């Protein structure tokens, strides 16, 4: 116990730094993947058969293969095959490579949710808008968008909760997120080695953050419950 008390300041400092990386990756992924997913979804529903086919293939590849492999490919492929290590070896490069992999991966999952959301809105809504002299743009923004958001909030919430935990996969390209930080004390770091508790303690960080996310997303869902 005394030993743990002595280790605590060092460990928490390292875990906080690691969790900061986790959160950065989390937010960057959302900022990138939420809009990109919409573009991909619109692409799959496009009248241009080639674009639609291309987007469907991308979704199939990205959702059908492990994110861990995607991380490895995106980070190592440029240097390994093209002889141009665009990301560099530093922490920043690793972070951006991980961000790109996560954004693409999650955008494809979001795309399928968006598509479901868009298609869940009856055609009658569009027709009602058209006969009232509204443009397709107005119909999208003033009629369909909010209904679509309401339809996708629950499935998107699920993905967001999963994303928080998935960020730990980025350690495969040595992005030093919180689990890496926790495990370093097991391997030996900053004079502490063989300490198991920091690794297990990382779970508390995830739990707290996912608690906050669950409450926030639940509120959003509730705010949209005024219509059916």
């Amino acid at each position, binding site marked *: 116990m005394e030993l743990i008390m002595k280790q605590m300041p060092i460990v928490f400092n390292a875990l906080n730094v690691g969790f900061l990386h986790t959160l950065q990756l989390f937010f960057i992924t959302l900022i990138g993947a939420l809009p990109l997913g919409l573009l991909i979804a619109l692409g799959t529903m496009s009248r241009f058969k080639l674009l639609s086919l291309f987007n469907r293939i991308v979704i199939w590849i990205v959702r059908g293969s492990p994110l861990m492999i995607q991380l490895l490919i995106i*980070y190592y492929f440029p240097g390994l095959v093209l002889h141009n290590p665009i990301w560099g070896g530093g922490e920043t490069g690793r972070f951006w490579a991980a961000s790109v992999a996560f954004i693409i991966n999650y955008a494809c999952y979001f795309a399928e949710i968006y598509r479901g959301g868009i298609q869940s809105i009856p055609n009658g809504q569009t027709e009602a808008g058209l006969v009232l002299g509204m443009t397709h743009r107005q119909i999208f923004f003033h009629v369909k968008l909010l209904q679509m958001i309401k339809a996708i909030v629950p499935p998107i919430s699920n993905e967001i909760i999963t994303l928080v935990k998935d960020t730990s996969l980025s350690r495969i390209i040595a992005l030093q997120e919180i689990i890496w930080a926790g495990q370093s004390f097991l391997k030996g770091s900053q004079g502490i080695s063989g300490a198991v508790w920091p690794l297990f303690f990382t779970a508390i960080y995830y739990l707290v953050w996912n608690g906050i996310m669950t409450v926030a997303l639940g509120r959003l869902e509730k705010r949209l419950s005024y219509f059916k």
Partner: protein
Amino acid sequence: MKKLLSLLLAAAMLLTLTAAFAEDSDLAYVQGKGKLVVGITDFAPMDYKNEAGEWIGFDADMAKAFGASIGVEVELIEIDWDNKVLELNGKTIDCVWNGMTLTDEVKSAMSCSNAYANNAQVVILPADKAASYADVPALSGLTFAVEAGSAGEAEVKALGYATTAVSTQADTLMEVAAGTSDAAVIDALMAAAMVGEGTGYAGLTYTFSLNSEEYGVGFRTGSDLVDALNAFLAASYADGTMQAIAETYGVQAAIIPQA
């Protein structure tokens, strides 16, 4: 569909072609970008963080000195040890300098420098039981925790003793401390730093060496940085820099003379 297939084939061929024309000089490449990226893990006393969060250690300091000698900055970056060859070939790092044992596997996967330090695989036992084992044959019947794929695992397997593979050397110590394995086999330099009085594992001690081995620095296959480093090692041994750095970290006894 046929068109797509032929396009893919063409792309694949182009890639193999470009792969064939590797850089002429790795040294020129590193000097061109002005930075040597060194892949490490947290491995006291070779590479570890000081209170200020900077990487220090015998390997870290030597790497910085080497960088200065070829006129580039040195960036030490923590990698996943399992991916070290991927990192090298993917050019995300330029060398692996982290108390790396020069095994046949390592030497076939990368171009290595001359050996610069001696190491051994040593047996870790609970301090109170160490006296009951007089020699290596007495250890038969014990279960050994070893790092998966490590030199230690190979040594124990060669003896025909039972092993439990775990993911890091530090984990093997956990196993012995927790009593889930009877003994462990790890690097001597690491054992010196992590086991015994004044460490996290005061109840453990290290006894026999199962072999002797050497540490070296790994580069991309065919890299001319190997020659540059060998020349640097020779020079720094000749003028005593290497020995001075070794003394800072208490590893002077392990240094291999360079010529």
